[in-house]
């Protein structure tokens, strides 16, 4: 934020659509304090009943992976088929598994 920037700071908004569901990123907004960020998120992102709970997080607090991380971070998981249930063979006669 530069010294003459008067637009507050950037926040990221996460919404829970229904109780029990995960919080999902739905957009960003500007606010000057936590209470305002929460209120603005409500006024901006739940006008059509899209949410039942809100998280707001200052954008600067988010740490994200880089595009160059794509290979080393995520490709190693591609061949770990043994982490998926379909890897294992269970006799057809066995139920509820």
């Amino acid at each position, binding site marked *: *934020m*530069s010294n*003459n*920037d*008067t*637009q*507050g*700071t*950037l926040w990221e908004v996460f919404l829970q659509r229904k109780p029990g569901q995960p919080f999902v990123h739905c*957009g*960003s*907004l*500007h606010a*000057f*304090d*936590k209470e*305002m960020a929460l209120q603005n998120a409500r006024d*901006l992102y739940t*006008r*059509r009943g899209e949410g039942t709970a809100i998280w707001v997080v*200052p954008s*600067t*607090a988010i740490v*994200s992976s*880089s*595009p160059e991380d794509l290979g080393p971070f995520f490709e190693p998981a591609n061949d770990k088929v043994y982490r998926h249930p379909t890897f294992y063979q269970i006799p057809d006669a066995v139920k509820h598994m």
Partner: protein
Amino acid sequence: MEEWFDAKLQKNEMIEPKDWMPDNYRKHLIRQISQHAHSEIIGMLPEGNWITRAPSLRAKIVLMAKVQDEGGHGLYLYTAAETLGTSREEVLDALHTGKAKYSSIFNYPTLTWADIGMVGWLVDGAAIMNQVMLQRTSYGPYSRAMVRICKEESFHQRQGYESVCHLAFGTPEQKAMAQDALNRWWWPTLMMFGPTDDKSPNSAQAIKWKIKRESNDQLRQRFVNQTVSQAEYLGLTIPDPDLKWNEERQAYDFGTPNWDEFAAVVAGNGPCNKERLAARVKAHNEGEWVRAAATAYALKKNEVMSAA
């Protein structure tokens, strides 16, 4: 890097904020997204102009909700522009100092209540064609903003058409009001799609980068094709003597908009350019002490987040 970027576009994959991108792609996006955002914000003014005079409570509520949605859309787009490394303050400053452009349609006045219906039916109708296309734009945050916007916009055009229906099937005064508004808004709406393809060099590059997916003329033609029957249903006359169905092309032929007028409005000499900008500058300036108070209060509460 350039090859990696081109390959990504080729595969119709989205470009994300941290991805490498050509400088010109970034610049083009910042310009286009912020212009788009400004258009939403300036677009609040001609319609907001009628909120306090809306002739029924239902119409007043609907109009407020619609103008508010436009503000929300401007906001989604400003935050999309911010992912490209430009701040809200910077893009607003560009608007307020006249450096940034916005859609020229909002430099026309809303003279009667019928203009509100016409803006919804024609202007939003034209905007939606552009926005539906932009849902598939190549820049991720822009695309996601457009998906959300399109979902919310879907009621705007219907609301406009419903309002025009009340007028077209109402008293003779109401119908005359609707025809007058159609006469004034038809040509400016056709010009919303921008210059013809042969005069739109930026547009070709934007299509190459998959920022835009269809050309100005394609979108304009589609708009005319779908709007003619809607006007016929209302018993209103589209003010174009050259408008007629072309069996061979399976499309309507139509006249040429007044591109001199378009150039004049874009250059800042439309009927309301000065008023629109002045209204935004006034709101910004009069809001300055409010923002300063909020900043100071957060500082005292020790709530200011340090910027990275």
